């Protein structure tokens, strides 16, 4: 895909994302309603439709690295909010705020991002028909 920073097997990523069975695509009931904040290191970024994905790592309480996926709205929506294909670079220290998947999968439905330079993007997500 043109907009990928790294070439990474897309299918493998896809299966890894959904390994926690996020059912009813876009149904908000599969996400916890409270907001959780993670400060992580970006590892990969796919700027695409229908969802933009950012992979990041956080250090767990046991000192081990946890791999997370932040799911943001579509490329078309995020481009209108000022994003482009180089807005995330591997190694960036970013704050991700969102709704965690109830299944226990490390997936975050993104609501807000704080970039290394302090700039923020806030995303309007529907309660039951998300973008």
């Amino acid at each position, binding site marked *: 895909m043109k907009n990928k920073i790294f070439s990474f097997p*897309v*299918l493998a990523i*896809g*299966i890894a*994302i*959904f*390994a926690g*069975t*996020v*059912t*009813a*695509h*876009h*149904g908000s009931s599969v996400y916890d309603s409270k907001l959780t904040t993670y400060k992580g290191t970006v590892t990969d970024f796919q700027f*695409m*439709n*229908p*969802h933009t994905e950012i992979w990041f790592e956080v250090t767990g309480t046991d000192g081990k690295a946890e791999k997370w996926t932040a799911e943001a709205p*579509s*490329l*078309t*929506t995020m*481009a*209108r909010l000022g994003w482009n294909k180089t807005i995330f670079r591997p190694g960036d220290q970013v704050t991700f705020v969102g709704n965690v998947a109830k299944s226990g999968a490390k997936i975050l439905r993104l609501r807000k991002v704080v970039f290394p330079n302090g700039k923020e993007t806030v995303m*309007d997500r*529907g*309660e*039951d*028909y998300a*973008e």
Partner: protein
Amino acid sequence: MRNRLLGLTLSAVTALATSPLILAQTSKTNVAKAQAPAPTVDLSGVWRRSRRAPDKTRKYTIYELAFSIANEKPPMTPWAEEKFKSAKPNVGPNAVSISESNDPILQCFPPGVPRIFLIRGEPVEIANLPGRVLMLFEYDHFVRNIYTDGREHTKDLPGTWMGDSIGKWEGDTLVVDTTGFNDKTWLDNDGHPHTEDLHVVERLRRVDHETLTIDTTIEDPKAYTKPWGGHAIYELKPDWNLGEMVCEDNVTYSDMQQKSEGGK
């Protein structure tokens, strides 16, 4: 009494005589005419469904505000009730998973009208050509041609996914009349059904420079016991251009999701 009736009759005749519909040429070939009446009001621009709640009586979900026709149960006939039971939507209050859903748009079939307005919150661009108003949808680059040159509906072709639309101006309102549908689409995201006799009337009015309202009426006697519909508000997005949104990208994404669900 007689004088008032005479006065009313004279007013009506005057109104009709100056109506653009009377003055428009009728044509034997269905090709948009350059001499069609100019739009009374310019509806052009990129528009996006407002998320503003209509009142403060309660909290509205975005599904109710932007992804539904009306926030009440449509008046279905027994035929429609049966058909509706078999619909398995992927979004909204009756949502099931993608692998369980039979929503035709998951296979990228056209959404039909008015559902084209209700998908994914993407904008629509309205533009003018001689004899036509165009609706360009970001959703999968659909285009609706609304013929405003006074033609009649096409009657001798099979029904289509998006219907056959003709438009006329009533004062500051563009009245779009659409018939000629096939019966393969859902009316909305919940899966409400319709027949090939579906008749949709949309009344478009630019309330102010930044606001467009669309009042939609649905008539389909076999499916609904009486006409019903909804009122939609659109906000102008002066700094937006339509982006590319390709339905098949959703399919790729869903396929990945379903594979990990293990065909659940």
